[in-house]
């Protein structure tokens, strides 16, 4: 089980989602992907996409308008 960080700071939609989808595909089941974002638009689709895809998701607001989207790959 490894933890991978993906820096999407400064990137607007749809870039964070596309990058996260690619990265998650490379990981193994049980791995954790942490996507760092600071565009609120990504907060509307990234967690929702990952949940719909069946993964476990939690988000942490690490600063004002800056988030870590934590995705545990389950399948």
């Amino acid at each position, binding site marked *: 089980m490894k933890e991978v960080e993906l820096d999407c700071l400064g990137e607007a939609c749809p870039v964070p989602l596309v990058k996260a989808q690619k990265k998650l595909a490379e990981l193994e089941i049980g791995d954790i992907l942490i996507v760092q974002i600071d565009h*609120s638009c990504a907060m509307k*689709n990234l967690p*929702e996409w990952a949940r719909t895809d069946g993964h*476990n998701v939690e988000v942490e*607001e690490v600063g004002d308008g800056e988030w870590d989207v934590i995705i545990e790959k389950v399948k």
Partner: protein
Amino acid sequence: MREKTRERYDVVIIGGGASGLTAAIYCGRARLNTLVIEKALIGGLATYTNEIGNFPGFPDSLTGLELMNKFHQQAKNFGVNFKLTDVKSVRMENEIKEVETFRNIFECKVVIIASGGRPRTTGAVNEEKFLFDKGISFCATCDAAANTDKTVMVIGSGDAAIEEGMFLTKFAKKVIVSVIHDTGKMDCNEIAKAQALANPKMEFKWNTVVNSFEGEERLEKVILKNLKTGALDTVIADTCFEFIGYLPNSEIFKDQLKLTKQGYITTDEKMRTDIPGVFACGDIREKELKQVATAVGDGSIAGVGAEKYIAESEMFRNQIMQKEKIGMIYIYSAIDAPSRELMPMLQEIEKEFEDKVKLNFIDIYKGRSLCDRLDCTASPMTIFYTKDGVVIDGSMDCSKPAIVEKLKSLI
């Protein structure tokens, strides 16, 4: 699987939109230990719009995100806690309620449901393929800039569809609107309609619905179907914005609360649901007008309701249902003279028993909620007797000898 961590709060609010944040502001200000759980962006659906022009207090209209950030900041100022995850299940029937997420179980005295709605989709062929940034969007504000000088499609003719469509004309070179109704008929307000019809960048496809979405990786074409003629019409579009209404986020509550046919939660005017200590507010409620202003009204009522419910629970447990003495709880009504006139006699009896009996009064004219905790059918001139904090008997016999005899038998 790892064990879930348990945490305790006074109030857990499910959903961080306008109604949940308002409830949080009231709870936080009342010094209740409050948690808001939000699965997406704090601010809810209002963050999907570029202009909120009808929320009082902001005459130079602002974006939904700006307005909601102010709500968020205000709640933080009052010490409200936030957790960004989705609520998976709830158990609400007991006095201590449980709200479960992926890692935690949150225990609380009050649950406020403020889970709002999510955009309805068309259900057309291939729609799923293009959700999540592949060409179908529900948020003009989010995706307008990416469509500069492009052709976009809007589905719907309500206020959101037409107002967001007009906003999109500031970026896109063309906005094609699919309207289900006959030529010239729209669901939006008349002002928006007149402006939209006069907007040279807007084009309307009357009597149409989406038949399918087509494209390789991304959306390229929307195939419309004319409801009158059955003819198909291919529209080349870079993004399709759907504004055809909203569905309530109420699935996780359906086994515990009564929902309307459409899935909305019914409450009374105090935002109370059928379960004591569970409130619902905002767009998730069955109500006439779903707007930020009404979400704020609902949220404030739910927040104050939560505070009162918790205070009353404590009073009920510590005072009315005290364990130290034999308890005599007298139900009366302030506007019912006969029931009021018995009160001095009861106080006399309490005195006669010196320190062994504790008398409490409940005035049902003030509200039934305390009385309902004992027995929801009780009427004025009922006496409940308790021992060790448990109701032993209830009686409408208010003659002095009968009461004295009952008390003696309990001591």
